[in-house]
C-alpha cells in the first residue's frame, strides 16, 4: 500500500468512523468503538481496493450525503419532533451558505471589485464562518417564526416556501449583497492551504510532512472528515437535546397542542424554539456546502434540491428518528446520484425514440425520486427507521425490559 493510498484511506476512514457509529443500532456497548474500528477499516479497505477515480467520486458522494444528512436532521427537529411543515429548508440553507461565504472571503479590491460585489468580506476562519451561518440562520428563523408560526400544517408550508423564495430572490437580485446573479467565487476551504502550499497559519510546520505525499486534489478527503465530524456533532447534540424533556415537550406539542398548553407548556415558545434550532442546523449545512463547492449562486438553492429532496430523505428514513434522517439522506442521495448514470445510459434509447428526448434525460431522475417518495408514503409511511415510542432517554426502553 503506497503512502498516498494509506493517507487517503485514513482520512476516509476517519470520516466513516464519525458516521458509522451513528448508523449502528443504538443501545449496545460496542456501538461506538465498533463503529470507529469498522469505519477506519472500511476507509483503508476502500482506498486500497477502489481505483482512485471512483474513490474521489465516493468521497464527493459522501460529502454531499453528509451535508444533506445535516439538513435532514434540522428538518427532523422541525417536522419530526414538532410537526412544523417547513417547505422553506432551502431558504435557511441559502442564508447559511452566503453568510459563511461572506464571513470568510476576502473583500475584492481594485479591478476585481468591479466584477465581484459583496456587502463585506471579513476573511475570518472557517469555524467563525460556520458559527456565523448558524447564528444568522437562527436569527432569520426567529424573525420569520414570529408571524409565520401562527400557521399550521399546509398554511405553514405555503408561508415557508414563500419565505424561502424571497430569500433566494434576494440573493439573485441584490448585487451589493453577495454578487447578485453572478456566482460568489473564491470561498476559502479550511486546511486547503496545507495541500497547496504545505503551510497553514494554524498548523505547525513540523506537522506538515504528514500530508507531504498528497496532492491538491486529494483535499476532498480532508474536507469530508470535517463534514462528517460536523454531522456527528450535530447528531450528538440533537440526540441529547431531543431525547429529553425538551424533546418530549416538542412531541407533546406536535401530538396535541391544546393538551400540551393545558399541561402548562408554553406552546408558542416551544414551537419557535424548535423552528430556530432546526434552522440553525440547516444554516450549518449551508456553510459546509458553500465551503465545499467554493462558488455558490442563487440557483443552488432551488426548492427541488434543497427542500424537497430533504423531505424525501426524512420521509424515507423515518421522521422523528435521528438515525433515520441520516440513513434516509444517504439512501436518497444514492438514488439521486445513481440515477445520473441511468439517465446517461438511457440516452441512446431515448435518442432512438425522438431526437429531442436525450436532452431531457436528466428529468428521469426526478421521476424516479418522485416514484420513490410515492412508494415510501404508500408502503412505509413511517420510514425505514420509525420513530420510537420512548422520547426521553432517561426512561427505560420499553422494548428492553
Amino acid at each position, binding site marked *: 500500500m503506497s503512502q498516498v493510498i494509506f493517507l487517503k484511506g485514513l482520512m476516509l476512514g476517519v470520516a466513516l468512523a464519525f458516521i458509522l457509529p451513528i448508523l449502528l443500532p443504538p443501545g449496545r456497548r460496542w456501538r461506538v468503538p465498533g463503529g470507529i474500528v469498522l469505519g477506519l477499516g472500511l476507509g483503508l479497505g476502500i482506498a486500497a481496493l477502489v481505483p482512485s477515480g471512483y474513490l474521489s467520486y465516493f468521497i464527493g458522494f459522501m460529502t454531499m450525503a453528509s451535508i444533506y444528512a445535516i439538513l435532514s436532521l434540522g428538518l427532523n427537529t422541525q417536522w419530526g419532533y414538532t410537526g412544523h411543515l417547513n417547505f422553506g429548508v432551502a431558504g435557511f440553507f441559502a442564508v447559511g451558505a452566503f453568510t459563511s461565504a461572506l464571513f470568510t472571503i476576502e473583500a475584492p479590491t481594485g479591478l476585481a471589485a468591479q466584477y465581484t460585489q459583496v456587502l463585506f468580506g471579513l476573511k475570518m476562519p472557517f469555524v467563525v464562518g460556520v458559527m456565523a451561518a448558524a447564528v444568522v440562520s437562527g436569527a432569520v428563523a426567529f424573525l420569520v417564526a414570529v408571524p409565520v408560526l401562527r400557521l399550521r400544517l399546509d398554511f405553514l408550508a405555503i408561508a415557508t416556501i414563500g419565505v424561502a423564495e424571497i430569500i433566494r430572490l434576494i440573493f439573485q437580485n441584490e448585487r451589493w449583497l453577495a454578487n447578485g446573479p453572478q456566482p460568489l467565487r473564491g470561498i476559502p476551504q479550511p486546511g486547503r492551504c496545507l495541500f497547496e502550499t504545505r503551510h497553514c497559519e494554524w498548523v505547525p510546520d513540523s506537522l506538515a510532512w504528514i500530508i507531504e505525499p498528497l496532492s491538491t486534489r486529494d483535499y476532498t478527503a480532508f474536507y469530508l472528515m470535517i463534514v462528517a465530524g460536523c454531522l456527528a456533532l450535530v447528531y450528538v447534540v440533537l440526540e441529547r*437535546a431531543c431525547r429529553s*424533556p425538551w424533546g418530549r415537550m416538542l412531541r407533546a406539542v406536535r401530538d396535541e397542542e391544546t393538551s400540551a*398548553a393545558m399541561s*402548562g407548556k408554553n406552546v408558542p415558545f416551544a414551537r419557535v424554539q424548535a423552528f430556530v434550532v432546526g434552522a440553525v442546523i440547516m444554516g450549518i449545512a449551508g456553510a459546509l456546502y458553500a465551503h465545499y463547492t467554493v462558488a455558490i449562486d442563487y440557483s443552488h438553492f432551488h426548492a427541488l434540491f434543497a427542500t424537497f429532496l430533504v423531505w424525501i430523505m426524512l420521509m424515507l428514513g423515518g421522521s422523528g428518528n435521528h438515525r433515520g434522517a441520516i440513513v434516509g439522506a444517504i439512501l436518497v442521495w444514492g438514488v439521486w446520484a445513481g440515477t445520473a448514470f441511468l439517465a446517461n445510459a438511457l440516452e441512446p434509447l431515448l435518442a432512438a425514440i425522438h431526437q429531442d428526448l436525450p436532452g431531457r434525460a436528466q428529468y428521469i431522475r426526478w421521476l424516479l425520486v418522485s416514484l420513490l417518495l410515492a412508494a415510501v408514503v404508500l408502503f412505509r409511511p413511517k420510514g425505514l427507521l420509525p420513530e420510537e415510542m420512548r*422520547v426521553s432517554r*432517561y426512561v427505560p426502553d*420499553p422494548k428492553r425490559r
Partner: protein
Amino acid sequence: MTTPPSEASDNAGAIPPLLEVSHLVMDFGGLRALDGASLSVEQGTITGLIGPNGAGKTTLFNVVAGYYEPRAGRVYLNGNDITGLPPHRIFARGLCRTFQIPREHASMSVLENLMLVPRGQAGERFFTSLLRPGRVGAQEAALRQHAEEVLAFLDLSHLANEYARNLSGGQKKLLELARTLMADPKLVLLDEPGAGVNPTLMGRLKENIARLNRERGITFLIIEHDMDLVMSLCNPVIVMSEGRYLMEGPPEAVRHDPQVLEAYLGGQYAAAEG
C-alpha cells in the same frame, strides 16, 4: 331571574372562594356562548356544573383555563385576577383541566404522557438538556417515580408502557385524571369525566375523585350530564343555562327545582313534573 353568587365582600371574614368568575361574556361570531356568567367555587368542594347542551359550560372552562380570552368579565383564582393569562401561566397557579374528549399525546407512552406534565422541569430548556444530563437525569428519575405512583393510585400501572392512543375511551379518561394529579393542582376542572365510561370504571373514577378531594384537599369543578354521578359526588351543584348562572344548591334541591326543570325541558314539561 338569576341571583349572582354572593360577592366576597358580602360575607366578610369568610374564606374567599377558590375560583370566582364574574360576568363573563364570550362570543363566537354571532353566537353568545357566555352571557354574563358569574359563579364561584368554594375551597375544598366538589362542585358540579350542569345545564342543558349549549349552556356554555365547556366555554366557561375554556375561558377559565385561559384557552379563550373573554370579551368581558373577570376570572379570579384564589383572589388573583387571571383573566386573559395564557394557559401555561394559569396552570402554574394550580389550575388544571381535562377535556370532554380525551386529548392524550398519542405517540408517547402513558408513562411519558404523565412525566410531561409537572412544571419546573429543568430538562425542558434546550441548553440544560444538552449540557447538564446529570441534573436532567436525576429529575427524570424523580418524575418517573411520581408518575408510577400516580399510575398505581389509579390502577393503571399495567399500561405504563402502552401507547396512549391504544387506551380505551374509559382508560383515556383515567389518564386525563392522572395527568391532573401529576400537576399537583389546587383546582381541577373536569369536563364530563363520566361520558363514555363503563359503569365499573365509572365507579372507580368517582371513588378516585372523592378520595383526592378528601385526602389531598383538591377542589373539583365537574361538568357532567350523568345525574347519578352528580348527585352522589357533587355538593353544591351549579346550574347554567343560556350562558348564564341559573341557580345553585345541594343536589337534591337542584334536582327538583322548577327553574332547572324548565331550563332542561322547557316550561310546559316542568309544570307537569312539578
